[in-house]
């Protein structure tokens, strides 16, 4: 654009403006293929195979699952690229990996490895406390966390092609995930019944770009695929997220911190497909062994990862 004097009208193409090499439609497309599926955190090739065998639609390659990051403390960073490569070699389903918030070089490295999706995640220690990665600059698609509608739409404006509600990772406690999903869905219901004249002020209030707020109002849902995450530990938790209106579920520590990971993984996958069929949910929930130990979030000392970014 520089020098030509041509200015693109802001918001004209909603959120589709991006580099030609990888149009937004292709980025959203993969997320659409993941709908109705479960994405599992894995820390090595063996776990990745268990996840694939159980029917996960993608795996998230990590060095430590969120529960361990919480227990061990310290700074959590992007995983060793070698580990991610090994996991990529081991499975044929899509592989995702986490980059720190605002750390665009980690994202460049992940893009160069050739994985399928980058999670700009609050579970890792943020690298930039004010700015997120400008995701329009990448050919690789991004998924980002949110706690409410405003945060979701800000991330989409930055170029995220998929949204997950943050929940509270590594706690095995679903309460924050429910809070965040209800907040997003509730705001969308509010927005849908709103007069068009009121949308300007609403956009200001939730600090989101007006064009995306308007698009959300017209669609009646987020304009990209919307998963739930953070605290899912049982098939019932996963089905709850689906019934609240999510397109799919991320399961972090819930699977591989439980007594029988293969069985639990399989049960959660089935629960997401048959989320509205209680009889199937009974079948898959029986005899799963021990669930992960949860953390009570009434305790003020528990660090809130969800509050690490706005």
């Amino acid at each position, binding site marked *: 654009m520089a020098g030509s004097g041509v200015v693109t009208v802001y918001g004209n*193409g*909603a959120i*589709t*403006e991006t580099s030609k090499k*990888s*149009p*937004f*439609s*292709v980025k*959203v*497309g*993969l997320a*659409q*293929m*993941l*709908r*109705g*599926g479960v994405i599992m955190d894995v820390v090595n090739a063996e776990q990745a*195979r268990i996840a*694939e*065998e*159980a*029917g*996960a*639609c*993608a795996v998230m390659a990590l060095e430590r699952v969120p529960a361990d990051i919480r227990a061990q403390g310290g700074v959590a960073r992007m995983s060793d690229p070698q580990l991610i490569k090994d996991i990529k*070699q*081991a*499975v*044929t*389903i*899509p*592989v995702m990996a986490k980059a720190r918030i605002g750390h665009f070089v980690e994202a460049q490295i992940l*893009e160069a490895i*050739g*994985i*399928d*999706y980058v999670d700009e995640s609050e579970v890792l220690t943020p690298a930039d406390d004010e700015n997120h990665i400008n995701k329009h600059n990448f*050919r*690789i*698609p991004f998924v980002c966390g949110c706690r409410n509608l405003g945060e979701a739409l800000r991330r989409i404006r930055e170029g995220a092609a998929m949204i997950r509600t943050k929940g509270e990772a590594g706690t095995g406690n679903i309460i924050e995930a429910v809070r965040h999903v209800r907040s997003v869905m509730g705001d969308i219901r509010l927005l849908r019944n709103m007069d068009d004249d009121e949308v300007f002020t609403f956009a200001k209030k939730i600090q989101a770009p007006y064009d995306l707020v308007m*698009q959300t109002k017209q*669609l*009646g*849902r987020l*304009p*990209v*695929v919307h998963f739930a995450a953070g605290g899912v530990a049982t098939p019932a938790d996963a089905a709850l997220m689906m019934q609240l209106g999510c397109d799919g579920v991320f399961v972090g520590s819930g699977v591989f911190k439980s007594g029988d990971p293969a069985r639990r993984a*399989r049960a959660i*996958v*089935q629960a*997401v*497909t*048959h989320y509205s*069929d209680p009889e199937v949910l009974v079948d898959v929930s029986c005899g799963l062994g021990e669930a992960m130990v949860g953390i009570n979030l009434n305790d003020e000392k528990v660090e809130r990862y969800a509050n690490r970014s706005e």
Partner: protein
Amino acid sequence: MRRPAKHSRLAKNVEALHRLRCDGFKSAKMFDEPQRSFENLLDPCWPPRPLPESLTIRESLPLLLCVRFCTMAVGVLALQGSFNEHIAALRKLGVKGVEIRKPEQLQSVVALIIPGGESTTMAKLAEYHNLFPALREFVKMGKPVWGTCAGLIFLANKATGQKTGGQELIGGLDCMVHRNFFGSQLQSFEVELLIPKIAAKEGGPPNFRGVFIRAPGILEVGPEVEVLADIPTPSDKTVHSGPSVESQEENGGSENKVIVAVKQGNLLATAFHPELTADTRWHSYFLKMISDISEETSSSTVSQSTEDLHFSEPPIYDLPIYQQQ
């Protein structure tokens, strides 16, 4: 089974179509007569209103045919993946899409779409709920089945590039499919495909926006398979192939072209995702495959009145369709 007339206000239209088929074709001239000879035919919009009396039979036929589409239910395998997008595309054409998750649900539909998604995930879920025998039976009965992307892999007789241990397939389509032929998400792309055969039947421009997402490719096809579209092989393909690729398909390929859409009898398969575009020609092409069959088997496909479609259903919110600028 056809419902009694009082249950469907559009039953008259169906009746009229049936009469047209029985005695209407005797003289070509009758197509130019006004349709009022059939009395109070209804426009298939909702609420139904009478068709203008001045319309000729010829002009009102598309509207009546539309009713036929309304009255059949097409199943969409809803284990995982882009089944919502397929149902939305069908809805645009006035056809009801039914989510299929269990074997017994297959009995209520005249055709099946297997959507895109992760084929390993879908195979696992189908296996958990013992869907494979029912699906194979469905294909064997000659009912139309359309697979997109993961669905193509399902329908193929042979597949390579699978996960360790392989995966179960439905089979039926005489071809060899390579999973993730084009590589990972970074190699996903959009391209304008030439689709002369579809354009000839459905009209519209000769090209189609094909969205390829970690897409499979068809390496070889049997003699009975009709090729509907192919594209040039990307030159850097070999770099990104999966771990279990044999080297033979690189030199054995037919002039560096890879097949991406095929039809064999009542099976249709595409490596790309027509459900992610606004162009519904592939869907209407598939629907015509159904109506071609039901012509032979009388009106047994009429199983649903449009009334249950429009009342007391919660509104449905679909994702937008993103266009390249």
